[in-house]
């Protein structure tokens, strides 16, 4: 199980970055705190693929810039709607089935939808997504959307 060292390493890196003290005493506090936190987490059985999704890190490097670009684009689209003299929106609630196999994948998909202005995930039950879109064209074909495909690719074949 490589997740435990990873969790410890990430926590300790966070400690160093946030404390910014490198005296032996503070390093010792950091080591002790991280060890205690990881020990408790491991005993609680919550160090798993969901809480420490390091297996996605490599593919996330490809996904995150794309997501950032989508967020960028839809922000401009929404700003145009809001700043137009006469607001005309045609919101819909769209239901579709997502193709992700893992809960983590569905979590990433649902969060990505909400993070993109103009669409909000209003409900997830199993594979069934319920998305509120401010302009219903935004959600058309959400099932076969690039986001769905990319999150599935991010998820990879090994669950």
């Amino acid at each position, binding site marked *: 199980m490589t997740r435990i060292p990873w969790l410890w390493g990430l926590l300790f890196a966070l400690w160093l970055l946030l404390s910014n003290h490198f005296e032996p005493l503070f390093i010792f506090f950091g080591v002790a705190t991280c060890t205690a936190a990881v020990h408790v987490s491991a005993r609680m059985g919550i160090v798993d693929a969901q809480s420490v999704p390091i297996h996605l890190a490599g593919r996330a490097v490809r996904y995150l810039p794309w997501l950032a670009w989508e967020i960028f684009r839809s*922000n401009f689209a929404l700003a145009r709607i809001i700043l137009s003299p006469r607001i005309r929106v045609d919101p819909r609630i769209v239901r579709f089935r997502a193709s992700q196999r893992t809960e983590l994948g569905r979590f990433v998909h649902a969060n990505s939808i909400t993070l993109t202005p103009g669409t909000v995930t209003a409900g997830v039950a199993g594979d069934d997504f319920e998305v509120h879109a401010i302009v219903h064209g935004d959600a058309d074909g959400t099932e076969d959307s690039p986001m769905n495909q990319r999150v599935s690719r991010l998820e990879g074949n090994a669950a």
Partner: protein
Amino acid sequence: MMEQVASVSAWALLVVGSFFLVTGALGMVRLPDVFTRMHAAGMTDTMGAGLVLAGLCIHSGFTPATVRLVLILAFLWFTCPVATHALARAALAGGVEPYSLPDAEGGSEPGSEGGDRGR
């Protein structure tokens, strides 16, 4: 020279970020119902906060403060969608009828929200 480029781009990011913050706030007022307003709030979370924090990162140079700014942004982008989702679920569970165009089929218009006139 480098310093000027950094300073100008930092201020450009701050100004554009502020523009999105203001536009998001305007959307909160102008859009017709709770769901559409959520989208405007999302705009302030993503572009507004993102660009302002990016501007501050450049402004501060590479210091420990930069790391903290990036962490703030990361946590913000993880937590905001969860909060928005919870809000949307609560609104649906509470029986709020989403606004739709009055002339759309099956369209309903919340009485107090003022239709598509905005404000």
